[in-house]
C-alpha cells in the first residue's frame, strides 16, 4: 500500500491530469497480466457472518449537509464533454485498456477482481467521484454525466471489473447526495481516508418480476431503532463489504434506504456468482433482525430520494452496458474484416455487415438516451421518464448486441478464447440489475 502522503497526492481524480495520465497506470502497466495474482474466490458457497467491519461511531452534527454542486446548463444542445470530463475519460479509457481488459477473463473465472486493481481504483479516487471536494471527495463538481462517462469508459475494458471498481462508490455517492450532516460526518471518512471501505448499495431481491418499489425486505421501528429483515441478491463485493445501503420497506411509509454497518450484526453473506458481472464478486446478503439506530435512515425516508436513487442506479447500469456494447462493436470491426470464408472477408456479406450496422445504430441510441437522462439529473430536473427510456433501450438492445456479437464470431464466439461470450453474459445481466451502482 502507498503511504498516506502518496495517497493525498493521488486521491483526487482531478490529480489525474496533474500527474500526466496517472502514476498508477504507469506503475501497474509495467507488469504483465499473468503476473498479477487474483483473489481466490470463495468456492464453498457457505453462508458466513459478514466481514467484521469497522465500527462507525455515530456523529451528531447539526447544520446543513454538504451537497454536491449541480452544474449549470447553457441551454444549448451539446454532445461535447467539458474539458475536465474529457481528461478523466481519457485517463479511464487508458486504465480500462491497460488494466481491465487483460485480466478480465481471469477475473471472470475467479469471480473476483485482482486486489491490485481494486487498490488502483481506490487510489484513482473512484470511490468518491460522487462526493464533493469539501467533504474530501474527488469531485470538483459532482456530475451524473461524469459518472456515466467514467462507467462507460471502464466497462469498455470490462463490465464485471468496472462494476467491481465502481460499486463501492455507490454508498459515498448516496451520502453526498442525500446524507444529512451527521451521516456524512459518520460514514464519509471511511471512504476518503487511507483505507477505503468496501460498501454496497443493495436493492435487488431474488424474486421474479422484482419491482424496487414493492420490496420484500422490511424495516420495522423498535423504539429508537430500526430492525431489518430480508434478502438481497447479487450484491457486488457483498462478502467483503463493511457497510450496506439497503432498500427496505419501512412499515407504513414505503421503500426507503438504510445505512447498515456489518459491525452491528444480523447480517450474513454468501457468494452468489452469476452469469455475468462475475468479477464483481456478487453475493447474497441476508438481514435477519439487523438493528440500526434511527439515524440510519437516509434522506428522512422520502419517496423522492429513494426513487431518484433507483433511477440513478439504472443510469449507471445503462452506462456500463453502453461501454460493453461499444467494446463488442470495436472488437467485431477488425474481426469480420479479417475472418475469411468462401474466399473473401465475411465483412463483404450484407448479412454480416448489416448486423454490424445495427449494433452501431443501437449502441449510439443507448448512449444518447443515457447521456440525456444524466444531463437532466445534473440540471436538477426530473429524469424519471428518460431513465426508464434509457433502461429499456440498454436492456433490450444491449442483450441483442451481446447475442449478435457471439453470432458473428460463430464457434469462436462461443469459446473463452474470445471475449465475446463474456459480453453476451454481461450485457444480458446488466439489463436486470437494480441498485449496486450509482451516478
Amino acid at each position, binding site marked *: 500500500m502507498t503511504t498516506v502522503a502518496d495517497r493525498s497526492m493521488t486521491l483526487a481524480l482531478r490529480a489525474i491530469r496533474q500527474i500526466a495520465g496517472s502514476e498508477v497506470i504507469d506503475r501497474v502497466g509495467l507488469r504483465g497480466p499473468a503476473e498479477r495474482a487474483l483473489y481466490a474466490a470463495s468456492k464453498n458457497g457457505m453462508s458466513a457472518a459478514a466481514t467484521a467491519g469497522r465500527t462507525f461511531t455515530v456523529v451528531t452534527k447539526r447544520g446543513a449537509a454538504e451537497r454536491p454542486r449541480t452544474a449549470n446548463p447553457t441551454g444549448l*444542445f451539446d454532445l461535447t464533454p467539458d474539458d475536465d470530463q474529457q481528461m478523466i475519460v481519457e485517463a479511464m479509457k487508458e486504465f480500462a485498456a491497460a488494466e481491465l481488459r487483460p485480466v478480465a477473463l481471469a477475473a471472470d473465472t475467479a469471480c473476483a477482481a485482482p486486489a491490485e486493481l481494486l487498490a488502483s481504483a481506490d487510489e484513482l479516487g473512484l470511490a468518491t467521484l460522487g462526493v464533493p471536494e469539501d467533504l474530501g471527495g474527488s469531485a470538483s463538481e459532482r456530475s451524473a454525466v461524469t459518472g456515466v462517462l467514467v462507467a462507460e469508459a471502464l466497462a469498455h475494458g470490462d463490465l464485471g471489473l468496472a462494476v467491481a471498481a465502481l460499486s463501492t462508490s455507490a454508498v459515498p455517492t448516496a451520502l453526498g447526495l442525500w446524507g444529512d450532516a451527521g451521516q456524512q460526518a459518520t460514514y464519509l471518512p471511511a471512504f476518503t481516508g487511507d483505507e477505503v471501505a468496501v460498501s454496497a448499495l443493495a436493492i435487488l431481491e431474488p424474486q421474479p*418480476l422484482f419491482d*424496487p418499489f414493492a420490496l420484500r425486505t422490511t424495516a420495522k421501528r423498535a423504539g429508537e431503532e430500526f430492525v431489518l429483515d430480508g434478502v438481497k441478491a447479487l450484491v457486488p463485493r457483498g462478502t467483503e463489504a463493511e457497510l450496506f445501503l439497503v432498500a427496505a420497506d419501512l412499515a407504513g411509509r414505503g421503500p426507503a434506504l438504510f445505512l447498515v454497518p456489518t459491525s452491528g450484526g444480523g447480517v450474513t453473506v454468501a457468494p452468489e456468482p452469476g452469469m455475468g458481472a462475475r468479477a464483481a464478486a456478487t453475493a447474497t446478503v441476508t438481514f435477519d433482525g439487523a438493528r440500526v439506530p434511527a439515524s440510519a435512515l437516509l434522506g428522512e425516508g422520502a419517496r423522492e430520494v429513494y426513487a431518484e436513487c433507483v433511477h440513478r442506479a439504472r443510469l449507471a447500469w445503462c452506462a456500463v452496458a453502453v461501454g460493453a456494447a461499444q467494446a463488442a462493436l470495436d472488437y467485431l*470491426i477488425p474481426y469480420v474484416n479479417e475472418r475469411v470464408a468462401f474466399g473473401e472477408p465475411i465483412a463483404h456479406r*450484407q448479412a454480416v*455487415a448489416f448486423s454490424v450496422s445495427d449494433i452501431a445504430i443501437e449502441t449510439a441510441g443507448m448512449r444518447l*438516451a443515457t447521456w440525456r437522462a444524466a444531463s437532466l439529473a445534473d*440540471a436538477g430536473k426530473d429524469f*424519471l421518464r428518460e431513465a426508464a427510456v434509457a433502461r429499456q433501450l440498454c436492456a433490450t438492445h444491449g442483450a441483442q448486441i451481446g447475442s449478435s456479437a457471439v453470432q458473428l464470431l460463430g464457434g469462436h464466439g462461443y469459446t473463452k478464447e474470445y471475449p465475446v461470450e463474456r459480453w453476451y453474459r454481461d450485457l444480458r445481466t446488466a439489463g436486470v440489475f437494480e441498485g449496486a451502482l450509482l451516478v
Partner: protein
Amino acid sequence: MINLETPKKFRPLIGQAHMVAQEVLRPISRKYDTGEHERPKELDFLAAVLDGMEDSGATSGAGAAGAGKGEDKPAANGTDPSATKNGSNLSTALSIMEMCWGDVGLLLAIPGQGLGNSAIAAVASPEQLKEFGGRWAAMAITEPEAGSDSAAIRTTARYDEATDEYVLDGEKIYVTAGERAELVVVWASLDRSVGRAAIKSFIVERTNPGMKLDRLEHKLGIRASDTAAFILQDCRVPASALLGSPEVDVKKGFGGVMQTFDNTRPLVAAMAVGCAKACLDFTRDALNEAGVTIDYDRPALAQSAAAAKFLAMEAEYDAARLLTMQAAWMADNRKPNSVQASIAKAKAGRTGTDVAFGCIELCGAAGVSETELLEKWARDVKILDIFEGTQQIQLLIIARQLLGLTSAQLK
C-alpha cells in the same frame, strides 16, 4: 457541456410549428388524403406564415430549406469559436418533427419546403442563391432503372458551347412536389463512362418546355404530396444552372451531390420522428381511456402487456429522436456526419413504421378505421424508410464507413 434538451432559443419556433400542425394541418389531413392530387390551397397561406416565422427569428424555419451549411454566426454564448453551435440544421429538424406530428404529406406539399431547396441551400453559389433562393424546388434523382443505385442514372447532360447551355435528356420518376414546385433539381451525368464522379445536379425551371410532366403517381400514403414523373427531351438550361463544380473529378467522386444527403437525411429522419410521436400521443390517450396507465418506475413486465409494449415503443422513439438531433447538431458544427446521418435515417425510418404498426395493434379498430388518423399516419410513415435512401442503403453506408469497405467490396 453535455445537454440533450431542446435548446431554449428554439422553443418559440417549435411552439409555433406545433400550433400550425394542430390548427392548420390536422384539420385538412383527411381531406387531401382522400382527394389525392388536389392542390391543398390552404398551404399557400401557410407558406407565407412560415416565411414570416423564418424572417422573425435569427434562425430558420420549419421546412427543408433551412438545412444547409454550418452556421457562420458567432456562438450566442460568447466569442469562443470552439463553443457549440445550435443552428439551422437542428432548428429545422426540430420544427419538421412538429409539422410531421401534424401531417407528413402536407409538410411535403408546403410551397417552398422541397428537398430541392435543401440541395440548393447546401451547395449553391451566392449568385445561385440569389436567383433561386426562396423559390420552391423539387428534387429529381430516381429513374425507372435507377432507384437506390443513383450512380447508375441514365439522364445525360451535354454541354453546348455554342449557347453556353447544358442539354438534359432522360426520364425522372418519384419527384416529390414535382408538379407544383417552381424549380426541379435534376441529377444527370456529364459523362456516363466515368460513373458517379460525372453526376451533377442542375436547376431546371418547371416551365422549361424541355421538361414534360408525364404522370402523377397514386400512392399508399403522403397523398397530399404530388409525386411526378418527367420526360426530359432536349431540355436546355443555362450553364449557371449547374450546382457545385462543373469539373469531373474522379477522385472526389460523388462528393458534391452526396453531401446534400448529410443534410437532408436527418430531416427525413425528423419526419419519421414526428409521425411516430403523433401515433404515440394518440395511443397514449386511447390507452388512458381504456384504463391502462403507463408507469415509468415499475418494471415494464410487471405492468400490463399494453403498457409494456407502449414503453418499449416510446424508448425506440426517443432513440430515433436523439440520433436525429445528433446528426443535425453535427451538421451545424461542421463535423463530418455521414455515418450519423445514415444512423438517424435508418433508426427513425424503421422506428416510424414499427411504432405506427404497434400503435394500430394497441388501438384495434380505432387504429384501422378512417374515422381516426392513425391508419393514415401508418401509411404515410412508410415512405420515410424508403426515400432519401432506403433502410438497406443506410445500413450499407454505415457498414462501409465503419468497416472501411468500398462499394465494390461490400455490394
